[in-house]
């Protein structure tokens, strides 16, 4: 008595076909799962046994062997429960063999026989489509996320009994009506820049950052509003394209982090991991690697608050993904790639206690500590941060100001326009925003007029800007020019860009001449 049921395994974001082969033969009753099954798959034995029994079927008192083919790929997760149970029932002749043909089956079982949702269903649906499977049996709760993948008949089930009844023809389930694709954000929205009083300078800097995809460092005392400003950045980033939404949704689906009833994430994610986080949770990891924070922030914002508190090794790990736009996690039997094209927004206090230069609260750091604090940030990482600005502590008086604040929607209009210009300019290149310009491209695309060159030169002479600031200033100036729809970079653009390079000024240069 043998059966074969198709299901789907995941490597990173890619699904691949896995066949669940079941053999029931006479002998001492046993239940074995082979084919490089991890613990969570091995445990399916207990769930499947109980679920079958509690759904009113007899669990065969025979020797049962399950093989997950191809047998040389590691399998992890609970989504093999349902196909294994169906496989056993087919082999036990409770379900007719031909009825399961052409189905992709996936789902976790509870002991009472109900079917639970599993992560990564979107990626599995995409794989099923590519493998020309036309029918999928999935947990009912997973239905919203697969509705973007057309061309497949979905049979949502709530329990093993429903599944069996469907296959045995007792109560056939009708293919689900696909829901209208409804976008849903991964973060609670309702945020808007009009909530932030004052802070015009910081908001403008973030508008420039959003327009050119530049990474940002915000420096300011606790309570100055760094987090508030950063959290609203996704609201002014350009609108997501369908492909971008799909990429984000795939990552969230695999991570099991899709909000319920979500078919497609249509707002840019905002991730704010704490500085005690491990390197593995930042870039992704685990024996079967899960996406890390950098990937969860794909096409969105990765916010690192208290940047100097992050371990140096943690920050150094960030460099490669920031450069490449993807992380590659190598394991003995597989290499998994997750995309991670995010905007880095980081925040730092000016000193350890946070109150350096605060007019009201005294700073309790020793001067040495205060000066060392920011210089601790690793040079290579700072090299990838184009915009560094100070966020002033607001006085009560400023909060009272009654001037209407600009809404995120108004700002985003300008951002979208500037992005469109960049997309057009770089259409033949492999990039889409100014932040991605390489050294050679900077020289080609960042043309500065005469007056601007003069300003740049004298600023470098007099302000002792570091050499590595040069290209960053040009890139940011290019974005500012794009915001004004100016084909060449002019002096005011350069002047503004230089003001966004706060840490390059040698503040500590009193003792060097």
């Amino acid at each position: 008595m043998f059966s074969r049921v198709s299901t789907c395994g995941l490597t990173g974001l890619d699904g691949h076909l896995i066949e669940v082969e079941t053999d029931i033969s006479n002998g001492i009753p046993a239940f074995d799962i082979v084919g490089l099954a991890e613990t969570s798959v091995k445990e399916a034995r207990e769930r499947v046994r109980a679920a079958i029994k509690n759904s009113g079927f007899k669990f065969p008192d025979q020797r049962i062997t399950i093989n997950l083919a191809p047998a040389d790929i590691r399998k992890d997760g609970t989504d093999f429960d349902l196909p294994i149970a169906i496989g056993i029932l087919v082999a036990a002749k409770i379900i007719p063999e031909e009825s399961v043909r052409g189905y992709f089956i996936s789902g976790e079982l509870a002991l009472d026989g109900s079917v639970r949702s599993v992560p990564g269903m979107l990626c599995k649906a995409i794989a099923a489509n590519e493998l020309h499977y036309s029918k999928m049996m999935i947990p009912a709760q997973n239905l919203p996320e697969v509705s973007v993948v057309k061309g497949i008949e979905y049979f949502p089930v709530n329990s093993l009994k429903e599944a069996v009844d469907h296959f045995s023809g007792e109560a056939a389930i009708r293919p689900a009506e696909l829901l209208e694709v409804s976008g849903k954000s991964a973060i609670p929205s309702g945020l808007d820049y009009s909530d932030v009083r004052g802070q015009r300078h910081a908001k403008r800097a973030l508008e420039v950052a959003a327009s050119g995809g530049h990474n940002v460092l915000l420096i300011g005392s606790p309570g100055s509003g760094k987090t508030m400003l950063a959290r609203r950045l996704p609201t002014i980033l350009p609108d997501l394209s369908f492909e971008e939404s799909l990429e984000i949704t795939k990552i969230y689906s695999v991570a099991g982090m899709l909000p319920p009833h979500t078919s497609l994430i249509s707002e840019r994610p905002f991730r704010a991991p704490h500085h005690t986080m491990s390197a593995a949770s930042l870039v992704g990891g685990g024996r079967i690697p899960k996406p890390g924070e950098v990937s969860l922030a794909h096409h969105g914002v990765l916010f690192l608050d208290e940047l100097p508190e992050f371990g140096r090794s943690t920050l150094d790990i960030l460099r490669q993904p920031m450069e490449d736009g993807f992380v590659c996690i190598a394991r003995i039997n597989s290499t998994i790639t997750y995309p991670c094209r995010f905007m880095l927004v980081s925040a730092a206090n000016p000193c350890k206690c946070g109150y350096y230069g605060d007019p009201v609260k005294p700073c309790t750091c020793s001067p040495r500590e205060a000066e060392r604090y920011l210089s601790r940030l690793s040079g290579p990482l700072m090299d990838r941060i184009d915009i560094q600005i100070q966020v002033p502590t607001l006085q009560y008086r400023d909060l009272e100001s009654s001037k209407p604040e600009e809404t995120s929607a108004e700002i985003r209009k300008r951002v979208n326009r500037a992005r469109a210009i960049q997309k057009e300019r770089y259409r033949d290149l492999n990039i889409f925003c100014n932040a991605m310009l390489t050294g050679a491209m900077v020289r080609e695309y960042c043309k500065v007029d005469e007056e601007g060159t003069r300003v740049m030169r004298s600023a470098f002479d007099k302000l002792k800007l570091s050499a590595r600031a040069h290209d960053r200033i040009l890139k940011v100036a290019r974005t500012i020019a794009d915001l004004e729809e100016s084909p060449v970079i002019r002096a005011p653009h350069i002047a503004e860009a230089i003001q966004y390079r706060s840490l390059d000024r040698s503040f500590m240069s009193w003792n060097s001449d």
Partner: protein
Amino acid sequence: MNKHLQAWVRLNLAEGMGISRKLELLRMLKTPEAIFEMDRKDWDGLGLKPAQAESLLSEDKLRESAEIIRMSEKKGIRIIPMDDEEYPELLRYIQDPPLVLYVKGVIPKGLGLGIVGSRKATGYGMNTAFRLASELAEEGFIIVSGMARGIDTAAHTGALHAGGQTMAVLGCGPDQAYPPENRGLMDRIARNGAVISEYPPGVKPQTYHFPVRNRVISGICIGVLVVEAGQKSGSLITAQAALEQGREVFAIPGNINHHTSMGTNRLIREGAKLVLSIQDILEEIPWSLSALPVYRKSSAPGTEPLSREESLILQTLRAEDLYHDQIAERTGVPRHVLFAALLQLEIRGLVRKDLTGRYAIVSDR
């Protein structure tokens, strides 16, 4: 080995008695050598406790003094005792002058003016100290400070910038660079004045050295200018010492809402002279300054006329240090003009942006 010098160093090393007691010994016996050449039995007449005499005459201290002299020679540090012609004139007359000074460089002759203040200075404080130090140095003053971080550093740098002379009084041996990042500054001070200390080479900085050191700063000077001081700043100890020594105390007023100016503002309330420009200092100095050498004036920062917006910004910054947003709000200068104007002012050295993001006036035209 110079017997006279060694006797001074040895006397300085003796423990268990204060400087005034040692000075009393010197008054009775005229020279330090005489103390050590005396017969043991004559000691009773001096009224020293046995432990004091023990420390004074101990073999250890003799060896130590020889070692200090050897070390100083090796490191190019000169030992200037109180009776040396190079010893700062005014310092001799304070109650507890250092018996011996360890010197790197040459102690300049002339009027000293102390400029001290907080180690955690604001842009306003740093810029003020730098500007006043260079102006006073141009007038011929020797700018004396403690080479600490913050105001001290700005004061020394300002004096050097104007091509003037400056002296640093340390709380450690003159071979120790403290704070370490000021090593370069220390060398430049030694070339354009002197780095001095009452602590012999090799002595590490200790927290209790600094208050003691402060009396030397004020002792060398005719007056002390406190630029910026919080409520518990060490520069207030210097101001106190200056008062006790009969020196002038000057203070730069600050924003009454800022804790960083609390100390200086209190000094002013308690009678310190409020300083708006170096004229306020010059008019308090009774000595004739005409005899002092005047150093070259540094070139004025930019001579091109300022634009309307630039003058407006300078005008606004005169009141206090401001953030970009505040400047925008108060001047009403549109954004794209403001960025350019601020950058121009920065490039011309008229304003400076500090770590907190505030702009401060460096030099007023």
